[in-house]
């Protein structure tokens, strides 16, 4: 575990020094602008608009970081050959991979936490005091974070066996397909053969179901988030993420470096 922690803390330091957290400035400006504008153009639905906008921004910014930095975690180390000296130390390849994953997960956690504080501040400017139901936002943010961590695992898996460009395409493609995994599972098409239906159903179970992590609409309208959904999302992300990471480690452990 020590080796994993050493790599993870260095990955976090890299993100901070490479100014990844500068996106927070953009988010802050967006929230300030939204808080000012919303008060003027929407009457009665300010809270809903701010929450929708804030959660969407947290999700989109997070996805950008998860995909682009996630793909670069391994590929950049191989391209620049920074990995060589490290792998000659008593470090297993899976420890390196897990450390890189944990480091970016830490970065995303800090980034998401900072954006959440910004979202609450924007919400407070249009509505104070905050109601107890507003703390549901935290559950929505937590589920977004789980989704981002799962995207990082996928990005790392693809970057272990293909070029960074293709890894980005694959990750984004799987993410978009994963948003429709639920629909694919319940699809009732009259003109499809039972074999094709079976295949779609099987694919829908293999794809990561990213809709499991979306409670944005529920929270924006002030409705409570079912606790069961949060647990389900947590277990799903942990299991799916572990399987994807194990696959990445297996591929990476056999890979010849240039």
């Amino acid at each position, binding site marked *: 575990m020590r080796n994993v922690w050493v790599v993870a803390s260095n990955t976090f330091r890299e993100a901070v020094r490479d100014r990844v957290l500068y996106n927070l400035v953009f988010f802050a400006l967006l929230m300030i602008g939204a808080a000012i504008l919303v008060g003027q153009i929407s009457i009665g639905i300010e809270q809903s608009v701010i929450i929708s906008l804030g959660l969407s921004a947290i999700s989109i910014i997070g996805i950008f970081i998860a995909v682009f930095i996630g793909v670069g975690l391994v590929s950049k180390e191989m391209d620049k*050959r920074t990995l*060589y*000296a490290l792998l*000659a130390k008593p470090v297993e390849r899976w420890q390196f991979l897990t450390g890189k994953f944990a480091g970016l997960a830490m970065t995303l956690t800090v980034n998401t936490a900072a954006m959440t504080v910004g979202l609450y501040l924007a919400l407070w400017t249009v509505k104070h005091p905050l109601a107890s139901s507003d703390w549901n936002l935290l559950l929505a943010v937590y589920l977004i974070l789980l989704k981002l961590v799962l995207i990082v695992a996928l990005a790392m898996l693809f970057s272990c066996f293909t070029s960074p460009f293709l890894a980005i395409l694959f990750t984004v493609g799987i993410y978009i397909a994963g948003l429709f995994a639920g629909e694919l599972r319940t699809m009732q098409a009259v003109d499809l053969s039972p074999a094709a239906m079976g295949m779609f159903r099987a694919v829908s179970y293999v794809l990561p179901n990213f809709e499991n992590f979306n409670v944005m609409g529920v929270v924006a309208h002030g409705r409570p988030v079912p606790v069961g959904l949060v647990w389900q999302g947590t277990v799903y992300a942990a299991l799916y993420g572990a399987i994807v990471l194990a696959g990445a480690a297996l591929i990476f452990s056999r890979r010849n470096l240039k």
Partner: protein
Amino acid sequence: MPSPAIEIENLSKEYPYGFLNLKKRKSLENLTMQVESGEVFGFLGPNGAGKSTTIKLLMRLIFPTSGTARILGESINDISMHQDIGYLPEQPYFYDYLTATEVLEYFARFHKSTDADRHERVERLLKKVGLDTAKKIQLRKYSKGMLQRVGLAQAILHDPQVVVLDEPMSGLDPLGRREVRDIILELKKQGRTVLFSTHILSDAEMLCDRVGVIVGGKLRGVGTPGEMVGIQSQGMEILFEVDTPGQKFRLLQKATKTGERYRVQLPESELYAHVDELRAAGARILSVVQIKPTLEEFFMNLVDADRAQASAVEVSGK
């Protein structure tokens, strides 16, 4: 007798290429050799000969097509054995957002040591490689030579028993090369085993107990630099001065003049006759040395032979 520090048996590496990766290119062919404990071993060969491939195989950065290797008696796949190995990659590159102190602290944390011991080692190594004054500068501002020094420092930071250096003199100025040579000699004094690859033959001649020459992925010879080039004399060389300008004698016609001095090469059997002739002419003999082939000549002969063989295969293939 102590067991060898590095044992390589029939190590081969093939890389697939072409459409569907169906063709194979041999980068290393049945390499078998040993590096004894406590010796400095030079791995010589031209670019693309298989030196770095061998080292990467030992460091498990790439995996062999066939064959095995052991370091300190343990399989190279045994991760715990890496506690006792130091490695400098060719043209090393490190996290450029870190300072030299930070990068060494980072690597040191993968080895067992207390915080105080780690800090002390890092400081000591930074001084040793001459980076003490630049230790707080991010590596993105470092020159190639400075990065090479950081690489060398991280390789020996944990006092490894076996140190593997891939082209350690590359990118260094004469002063830097001298410092690396001193560090290698110091490691030898401490009883460490050093394997280093180079194509700078004077370094190998100066530092190595034994050298191995690899050309075209095949090991062409292993031995002491003396054994490799042979001890047979190729003749004698006399350096002399003549006091009286315009003086003429037979040997003077054969000699090459450099400044005020004359240099002449002759068979060993004729040495005494010519020395007598010089004495009779009143010339002052400055030195008499035996001419031996250099490692460079030996090396170039091997490379030329390999190229000639490769051309012959190509022609017969046509």
